[in-house]
């Protein structure tokens, strides 16, 4: 079996990665002063905690965006072949959009899209 390209490639990967780490360890500058391990070496002291708390809604919005944005990508691929797929394809795309709309309606009714806390619907 003709394995040598694979072996060569793997060897090259190992050599490259190894030399990058190894050389920087040998040649790299190293200093150990008072503020080396501080976040800002310029001398500004950091204040408070790094674990700032954000409202869950930011994450929700981000997630919805990703989900719906990704789903709509499928429509591009349909658009390319729309003429070939004909009416059947059209209806299928319509159903696909319908399912997305249904999900949106569900989220909206659930109150997931409401921004301010007091207008949020009480579910149970």
């Amino acid at each position, binding site marked *: *079996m003709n*394995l040598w390209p694979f072996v060569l490639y793997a060897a090259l990967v190992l050599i490259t990665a190894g030399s990058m780490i190894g050389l920087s360890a040998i040649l790299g500058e190293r200093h150990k002063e008072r503020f080396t391990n501080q976040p800002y070496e310029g001398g500004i002291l950091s204040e408070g905690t790094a674990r700032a708390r954000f409202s869950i809604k930011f994450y929700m919005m981000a997630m919805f965006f990703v989900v719906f944005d990704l789903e709509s990508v499928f429509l591009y691929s349909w658009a390319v072949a729309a003429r070939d797929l004909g009416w*059947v394809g059209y209806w299928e795309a319509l159903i696909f959009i319908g*399912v997305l709309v*249904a*999900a949106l*309606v*569900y989220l*909206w*009714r*659930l109150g997931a899209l409401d921004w301010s806390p007091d207008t949020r619907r009480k*579910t*149970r």
Partner: protein
Amino acid sequence: MSSADFVALLPLIVLGATAIVVMMSIAFRRSHALASTLTLVGLAVAFWSLWPAAGEVPRQVTPLLVIDRFALYYFGLIIAATFAVVLMSYGYLERHDVRREEFYVLLLVAALGSAVLVSSDHFISFFLGLEILSVTLYALSAYLTERGIALEAGMKYLVLAAASAAFLLFGMALVYAETGTMSFPQLASDFAAGGAAHLWVLAGIAFMVTGFGFKLAVVPFHLWTPDVYQGAPAPVTAFVASVSKGAMFAILLRFFYQSGSRDLHATLLIFGIIAIASMIAGNLMALFQNNVKRILAYSSIAHLGYLLVAFEAGGLFGAAAGTFYLTAYMITTLGAFGVIAVLSASGRDAEDIEDYRGLFWRRPGLATVFTVMLFSLAGIPLTAGFLGKFYTVAAGTNSSIWVLIFVLVATSVIGLFYYLRVVVALFATEHIPSDAERPLPVVPAMGGVTLGVLALALIWLGVYPHVILHAIQSAMSGIF
């Protein structure tokens, strides 16, 4: 796509549509009874639609899905099992203070994923079905968010299943890279022409075995099983143990049979080793558990090992034996976890073996059902589990895989030991806790009826399996 294609796809379409309908109903009127009723109706319609679909089989619908008798048989199993899970979930969820309705949407989507899985004969649809199933199961296992252990279960399942999916995907990629096709029948012709001997194909299949192993929870890919079984709500555990594993076993059969890679020496060897390890380790580890859910988890590892014996036996006989064993096993696990579900109070699931001490004298009906289930797991006559074991041993004997058969015989005796421990507790006559010490929840009517029906189905299959055997034997035409 022609209308015949749609008819063939009807079970899948109905499942998907039901999920959307239930979701919409939640959006406008949040009602547990409404959501569960809609789910049950949808499942019933999906089950009914198997008959019109049966008129159109076998049919290749798009290059991705194939609807044949094999797929339809497993559709029926999946839908019926989901129906039973819904019935036992109603009473269980009523006792818990969570949003109950979304549970059914997730369950329907999981059922849809399983159905896609069993009808796929292409890597793409295989992976799609698997992911639809897995993603919903992450959410379902962590459904009771107030329990720390449930979150742990969901998290473990997420990480390990994602890792296994990556292995599976890499395996598929390797096979595709070498053969240039992702469809099982085309792989078959390629393999038959000698392509299977190529190193990349072998490596790809090995990676895929890892993916299969994780989902089936066989040794050494079983580590998540006890924690997920214990942490997930009892109805979800029932679903994972029955539908999810059942669908995975179906695609295992379809892929390895249809692509012809079952007959590779390497495949047989590796699955043989996995089967032996699962039977031995599963049964031995179950011996030391005091938690009924964990006992059942380890026993499920062993049972998947038995199933792989049927797979190893091969041929029509082996595939049919595996499918029958799986049918029996699905009914049995549904029943066993159903008993746990109906006995569980709001705070915790009834999973300690002490919860079952003397149950026969307090709730004879429930204890009888549980005993029937345990005897079926142990393979005692009158139950379907016995015939399943008989069929599997017969398939193994027919193929003269003696090592596997003797490991099966020896380990199933070990298995008896821990099933009997639970039975002993059920029928214990001393130190029976009074109602004040360990109050027993009222058994919900729907859950009770479901359990009764499952027990009767188990005995019916164990005594007069003719109808099911016939269905299975004709269903196997799909993968030969």
